[in-house]
């Protein structure tokens, strides 16, 4: 078994010119990101556009988006393991690996956002650190994120080790873990929403609809990413991905995007009909405030993308046509990325608690670091898939015999 796994590991060095080019590109991006990060360590977070007025920016925005992506793996787990929907069960492993990648990237985004990253151990529970349980939601988030990461890692490794010796993996021993992973997936995103949601100082976040909106949009963007990845895997490997799986996922997206847009409408209604002073950040986001309009075109672009994608996924004809399906998936990823990122984090700080409007817009330095982390994620996922594919298709096994 170990030999087989090692064999699989060796696969990462083998590949065509396209594979090497892809890896090289990612490595270049990672090195660039790392270079700028070193500069950030040296000079401090001053090299970002964040200031006291807007104290979280692009990093936390990406973190929030990726927590959603990680949580969305559950959308594959439920039909696969609980309802034994075969087409999805065959691909659930790739969903779990997306979760692992996304959580890893989340942790990286938190790390680069920290002023004192070497002190990260302070957040561990006593006697090592001084984790502020139960009152700090960030502490809760650390617990659920790490828990979710470990469970998914375990599930993937278990499945791979069984497959690598040519055996179908049994569900019974891991079933409790699968059961735990479902509420945990929901909870990582809920807890992340609660980080913002619980702050009475920030009326934009302090709305009870925040966590449901988080989940709804995560369950759009995560599956949309899966759709793209599955098609890529199908194209670049011998793994069969049943169209039924893809169409099932796109059907799911139609529902979740419908809910997402509905919740957005509900929030807009409440804020703008009641006209309380707390709708100011929403005004800034959608219509601009005191002639400051930086986010307005972006949030409307996001809204239009989401709306178009909703129509595409709602109509069976367009969601089962791969051209429109992929357009829809890309629109959703972009739409939710904007909405969940700059559209959610920044307006929470604008205007700030003393009414000042500082128009945050990320500097190139933080963009490069962000791209670097995405490259780390892409590299991690590529390598995991690279190892998994031969195990999955049992190429190695056949070759070994």
């Amino acid at each position, binding site marked *: 078994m170990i030999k087989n796994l090692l064999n699989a590991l060796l696969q990462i060095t083998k590949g065509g010119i396209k594979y090497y080019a892809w890896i090289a590109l990612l490595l270049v991006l990672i090195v660039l990101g790392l270079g700028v990060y070193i500069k*950030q360590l040296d000079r401090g977070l001053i090299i970002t556009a964040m200031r006291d007025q807007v104290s979280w920016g692009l990093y936390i925005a990406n973190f929030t988006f990726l927590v959603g992506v990680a949580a969305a793996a559950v959308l594959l787990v439920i039909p696969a393991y609980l309802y034994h929907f075969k087409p999805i069960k065959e691909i659930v492993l790739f969903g779990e690996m997306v979760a692992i990648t996304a959580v890893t990237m989340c942790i990286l985004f938190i790390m680069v956002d920290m002023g004192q990253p070497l002190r990260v151990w302070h*957040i561990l529970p006593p006697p090592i650190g001084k984790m502020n349980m139960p009152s700090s939601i960030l502490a809760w988030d650390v617990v659920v994120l790490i828990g979710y990461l470990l469970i998914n890692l375990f599930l993937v490794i278990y499945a791979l080790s069984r497959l690598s010796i040519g055996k179908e993996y049994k569900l019974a021993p891991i079933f409790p873990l699968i059961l735990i992973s479902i509420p945990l997936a929901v909870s990582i995103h809920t807890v992340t929403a609660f980080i913002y949601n619980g702050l009475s100082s920030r009326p934009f976040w302090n709305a009870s609809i925040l966590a449901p909106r988080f989940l709804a949009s995560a369950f759009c963007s995560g599956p949309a990413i899966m759709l793209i990845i599955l098609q890529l895997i199908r194209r670049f490997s011998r793994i069969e991905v049943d169209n039924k799986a893809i169409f099932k996922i796109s059907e799911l997206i139609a529902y979740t995007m419908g809910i997402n847009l509905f919740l957005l409408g509900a929030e807009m209604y409440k804020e703008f009909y009641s006209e309380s002073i707390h709708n100011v950040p929403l005004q800034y986001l959608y219509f601009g405030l005191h002639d400051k309009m930086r986010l307005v075109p972006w949030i409307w672009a996001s809204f239009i993308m989401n709306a178009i994608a909703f129509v595409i996924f709602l109509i069976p004809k367009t969601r089962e046509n791969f051209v429109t399906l992929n357009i829809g998936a890309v629109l959703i990823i972009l739409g939710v990325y904007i909405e969940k990122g700059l559209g959610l984090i920044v307006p929470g700080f604008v*205007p700030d608690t003393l009414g000042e409007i500082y128009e945050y817009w990320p500097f190139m330095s933080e963009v490069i670091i962000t791209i670097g982390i995405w490259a780390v994620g892409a590299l991690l996922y590529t390598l995991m898939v690279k190892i998994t594919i031969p195990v999955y298709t049992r190429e190695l096994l056949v070759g070994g015999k």
Partner: protein
Amino acid sequence: MSKKIKHSSGINLDRRTFIKGAAIGLAGTALPLHTADASFLDAFLQKHFREMRDEEIKKVIERLEKEASLEWKKDIRISATKAIPNVKFGYGLDLSRCIGCRKCVYACVEENNQSRIPQIHWITVLRFKKGEKWIDLENSEKYYNPKQIPEPGHFYVPVQCQQCENPPCVKVCPTQATWKDPDGVIVIDYNWCIGCRYCMAACPYGARRFNWAKPNIPTEELNPETHYLGNRPRYKGVVEKCTFCIQRTRVGKYPACVEVCPVGARKFGNLLDPKSEIRYIIENMRVFRLKEDLNTYPKFYYFFTGWQLKTT
């Protein structure tokens, strides 16, 4: 890319400075010193302030004094004076007197060793137009700069840490690096803060400030009389805030902002002492607290003694 990783001085990073930067950066995140020596490990492994016994604190402070004195080229003394028993500090600010001169802002900067570059101010003075929505923060102005103050038709509201009895910043801190000391002052252990800035998101009063870069204070302006939880020089990447001048008030003095205020609008005292000025204000004046609806219970009381101060 090469354009983007430029120092503000305009020097491009070459490979050597890159590597040097890496080493310094890694050390610098944990250490105030830019040389990795034996105290690196001590600094890295330093315990939480409230977990240390008195003799441990003494040792740590000795090391910190040495490090700080070396770094700032001045003899810096760090005390760890504990809260006085049966004292809870309260603050009063007379809005009918404040003329918006910002003397408090700069007295605070000097007393508490706030970074000059990048600029950090613990006190924000907001200007409001009279006759408009009351305390409509969004229409307030903090960058006002007339020839003379007070300006007709305006009034001023200085805002700083309100030392909440129910502080949201303490609640959210993931590492318990900030807490409410027995005299009601919210303090930060600058050696425990991880710089996540969750407290800044949670504070309804914009009272917390982050060291986006290494603080910069001219040596001759550095105040060498400091407190561990107060005005000792801070590190890059940690949060700081007003402590009611803990280094002064715990030895009986008034905060620097109280002492400098030219119109005597700022009042300070012990909320548990029925004879204190602050109790007199709360019991006899028209008092309000900022954002009362958030249930933070500030110990910072705004009050009115009469008509707004007029000047010639």
